[in-house]
């Protein structure tokens, strides 16, 4: 994909704030989410889970459950007769249904399908599992110590050097220069360990699907996911089926944030359906969502940064250990790539160690790895500024990555917006607003790559001249509105003449998940290209009618026009007129575009937060919050702002409150929204979004993804505010009242 694709232009639709096309269904309760679909003859599925963090499964007796009235299928791992060759798919299978060992509290060990929910629940109770409990480890730093129980023998990759135990499954390294030389030039060096807790994406809609699979391997699945193509492909690979024989349809999705980019239970539903010969609805409950679907990785990082007394960073290193949970993941690699990405550094080295433990498999959570990458970096830069009496925004500007900077992870940046966000922060009234007692103001920066990925879009011009747009990415936060707007902009027709649909897997080519902040960029690009393709076809039809060359026609305001006087004098022919004669000018009119675009533009943000610490309880209250982020081009500003605000709110929860709490027994102690408390309305202030628009050279309208970066800065921004309000440097998340109080008392 050419990088010079962006063209400045005036927009009619882009940048306005129309009502989203799926809105009425979502405010009236009509929109159908994962658990809202039923089928004739449908059974209810349910999963039995291990109560142990690590145990050998000695035997499973399903006879009593199978004999119960209303129970139509009972399955264990023994019923999954296909063993995938691919290691990643083999891990998915083992995670969906434990084999020889249960690897975490909540690991599935058996499943049933029954005629009612209550019978299914009773059947689970009737299944007897004999476990031999094994030693476990649920802490990332304990897991790398000598003598720790090794979760997977023989899985360590060759990139792990000698001296690490078998739980360190992979190591990656990034950077350039010679940090030891750089540290010699520093006036002050700070070296610290930072930890972040595992947090859950906390989507309000539990994972759900309705599956039907026949003995012939043909099936259907209705599923709440960020990628129904992924669900189809992975489920087929896990079960040994042909992907093309399964059709996956995406339900509306009630939040995902990366947590629904994986297969957790769909192969179980398909297998139950095949065994029972009936459709099976499988809906996880909240306890299962917490215990068995991926939280994000917890982390521990050893960081060292050197700075001159006038604010120049001379060298930086960081080793990140991220907890993968029971199966290998790549979050430490991403942390090691992202942490220093906002800075133009001569000497920088990072390494990422992926550590397996007896916890559920870690999943993406909005910019996976990046918040854990940024928290130590942004905290230490702030501490250096405090100790050297430097301005935190000016110091970041002084060291900021800009066009031409070589990133820590390798490439050289094209035009980027970090400086613009820092300048906007400096100029904003928030920066100079007065603060009261026990109040402090913190800032921090964040980065995310953004992404392209396989994308397939079709745009149909119907016989009446209206347009149907088919795309293959679940609409998680208003993307149908964005696609509709881009199609209308390009075609030059009113918004209400376009309707966008999320197509099933049999209706378009492969589409990558709704993740990586890719949809508005990549699907938007494909939508624009599909519209341009349709315009070319329509120009040909008009050319045929007028008896002139298609090159002599231009498209504007939803109609074909002769390009100039030489082309002939014809009145414009509108899309409706062209559509009406399509049967006689060559048949149906459609445009399409298939690509794996590589012009995604990286994203930067700066966050500013005021907090107040209660000196008696240690409770931290967020008083004011402002997000400055480069969107490239905001298609529908309401939903760009919503991404900024939502990411910040999740980051606030991560910083102050949210935490997976494990007991000595290796069991999760807070698998519910009462004890795992996400921010509620009364916890938060308004969150002011400031949209910067530095066009991405790789998108026709300049779009960058906006969905993920906003969760990256809050962890450190809040720690920095607390430090400035209470003179304590918190290095372990969450900054809960007992921790903050203890730190203040220890002063």
């Amino acid at each position, binding site marked *: 994909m050419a990088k010079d694709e962006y063209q400045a232009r005036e927009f009619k639709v882009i940048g306005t704030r129309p009502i989203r096309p799926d809105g009425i269904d*979502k405010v009236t309760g009509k929109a159908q989410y994962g658990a809202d679909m039923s089928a004739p003859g449908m059974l209810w599925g349910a999963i039995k889970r291990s109560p142990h963090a690590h145990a050998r499964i000695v035997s499973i007796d399903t006879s009593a459950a199978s004999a119960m009235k209303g129970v139509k299928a009972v399955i264990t791992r023994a019923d999954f007769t296909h063993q995938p060759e691919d290691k990643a798919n083999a891990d998915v299978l083992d995670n969906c249904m434990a084999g020889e060992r249960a690897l975490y509290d909540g690991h599935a060990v058996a499943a049933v399908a029954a005629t009612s929910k209550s019978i299914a629940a009773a059947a689970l109770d009737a299944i007897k599992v004999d476990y031999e409990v094994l030693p476990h480890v649920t802490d990332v730093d304990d897991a790398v110590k000598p003598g720790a129980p090794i979760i997977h023998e023989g899985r360590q990759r060759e990139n792990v050097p000698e001296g690490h135990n078998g739980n360190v499954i992979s190591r990656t390294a990034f950077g350039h220069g010679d940090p030891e030389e750089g540290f010699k030039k520093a006036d002050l060096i700070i070296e610290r360990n930072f930890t972040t807790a595992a947090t859950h994406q906390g989507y309000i809609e539990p994972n759900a699907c309705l599956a039907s699979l026949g003995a012939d391997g043909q099936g259907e699945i209705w599923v709440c996911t960020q990628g129904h193509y992924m669900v189809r492909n992975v489920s087929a690979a896990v079960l040994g089926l042909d992907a093309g024989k399964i059709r996956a349809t995406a339900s509306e999705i009630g939040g995902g944030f990366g947590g629904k980019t994986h297969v957790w239970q769909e192969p179980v539903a398909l297998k139950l359906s095949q065994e029972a010969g009936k459709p099976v609805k499988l809906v996880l409950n909240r306890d299962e969502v917490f215990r068995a679907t991926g939280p994000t990785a917890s982390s521990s990082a050893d960081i060292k940064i050197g700075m001159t007394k006038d604010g120049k960073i001379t060298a930086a290193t960081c080793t990140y250990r991220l907890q993968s949970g029971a199966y290998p993941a790549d979050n430490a690699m991403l942390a090691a790539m992202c942490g220093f990405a906002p800075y133009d550094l001569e000497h920088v080295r990072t390494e990422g160690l992926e550590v397996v433990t007896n916890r559920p498999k870690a999943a993406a959570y909005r910019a996976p790895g990046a918040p854990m990458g940024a928290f130590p970096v942004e905290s230490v830069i702030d501490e250096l500024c405090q100790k050297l009496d430097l301005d935190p925004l000016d110091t970041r500007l002084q060291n900021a990555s800009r066009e031409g900077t070589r990133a820590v992870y390798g490439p050289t940046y094209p035009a980027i917006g970090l400086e613009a966000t820092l300048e906007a922060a400096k100029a904003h009234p928030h920066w100079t607003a007065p603060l009261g007692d026990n109040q402090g103001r913190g800032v921090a920066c964040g980065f995310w790559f953004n992404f392209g990925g396989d994308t397939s879009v079709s745009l149909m011009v119907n016989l009446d001249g209206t347009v149907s747009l088919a795309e293959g990415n679940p609409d998680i936060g208003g993307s149908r509105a964005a696609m509709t707007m881009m199609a209308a902009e390009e075609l030059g027709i009113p918004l209400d003449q376009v309707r966008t649909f999320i197509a099933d897997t049999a209706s378009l080519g492969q589409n990558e998940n709704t993740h990586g902040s890719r949809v508005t960029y990549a699907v938007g690009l494909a939508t624009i290209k599909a519209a341009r393709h349709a315009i070319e076809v329509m120009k040909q039809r008009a050319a045929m009618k007028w008896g002139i060359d298609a090159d002599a026609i231009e498209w504007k305001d939803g109609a074909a026009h002769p390009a100039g006087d030489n082309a002939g004098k014809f009145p414009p022919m509108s899309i409706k007129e062209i559509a009406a004669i399509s049967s006689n000018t060559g048949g149906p009119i459609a445009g399409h575009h298939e690509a794996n675009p590589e012009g995604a533009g990286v994203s930067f943000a700066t966050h500013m937060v005021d907090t107040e610490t209660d000196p008696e309880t240690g409770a931290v209250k967020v008083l004011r919050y402002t997000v400055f982020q480069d969107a490239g081009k905001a298609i529908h500003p309401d939903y760009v702002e919503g991404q900024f605000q939502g990411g910040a709110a999740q980051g606030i929860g991560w910083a102050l409150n949210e935490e997976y709490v494990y007991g000595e027994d290796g069991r999760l102690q807070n698998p519910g929204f009462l004890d795992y408390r996400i921010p509620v309305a009364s916890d938060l202030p308004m969150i002011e979004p400031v949209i910067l628009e530095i066009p991405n050279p790789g998108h026709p309208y300049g779009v960058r993804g906006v969905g993920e970066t906003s969760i990256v800065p809050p962890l450190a921004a809040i720690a920095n505010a607390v430090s400035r309000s209470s003179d304590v440097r918190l290095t372990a998340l969450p900054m809960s009242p007992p921790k903050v109080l203890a730190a203040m008392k220890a002063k």
Partner: protein
Amino acid sequence: MSRIHVSTTINGDETEFLCEAQETLLDVLRDDLDLTGSKEGCASGDCGACSVTVDGRLVCSCLMLAAEAEGRAIETIEGMADGDDLHPLQQKFLEMGALQCGICTPGVLVAAKNLLERNPDPTEEQVRYWLAGNLCRCTGYDKIIRAVMETAKDMRGAA
């Protein structure tokens, strides 16, 4: 398993159903009456996605047994609009982009309507505390709170 016969009123319609003793009102609304606008986010009363009113009182339908609906008047999200005419809260949520994924939206709207019926002129703090039982993970609540405040203002102006 024997079932209990229940006569109730839902969104103004007289309704009868049979339920198991342990089934919640939410179970029956969703699984038996096809009123799937009320959502199950937690089944423990923590998320508010299943919010309905019972005789005008805001409740989590996951915490109420279906059998307790006998003789009551229940309002769900499906009864909030008057035919094609959206309730002012519904319209304002659309105009202000006060939803992203939309899963919490029905519960938030039911709860907000109940608030405005009790207090047509709430402060921002009152709105935030009233909606503290309705979890939203997408929006950070900003646009939701603004939409409720704006609706209250419009409705006061129209009254």
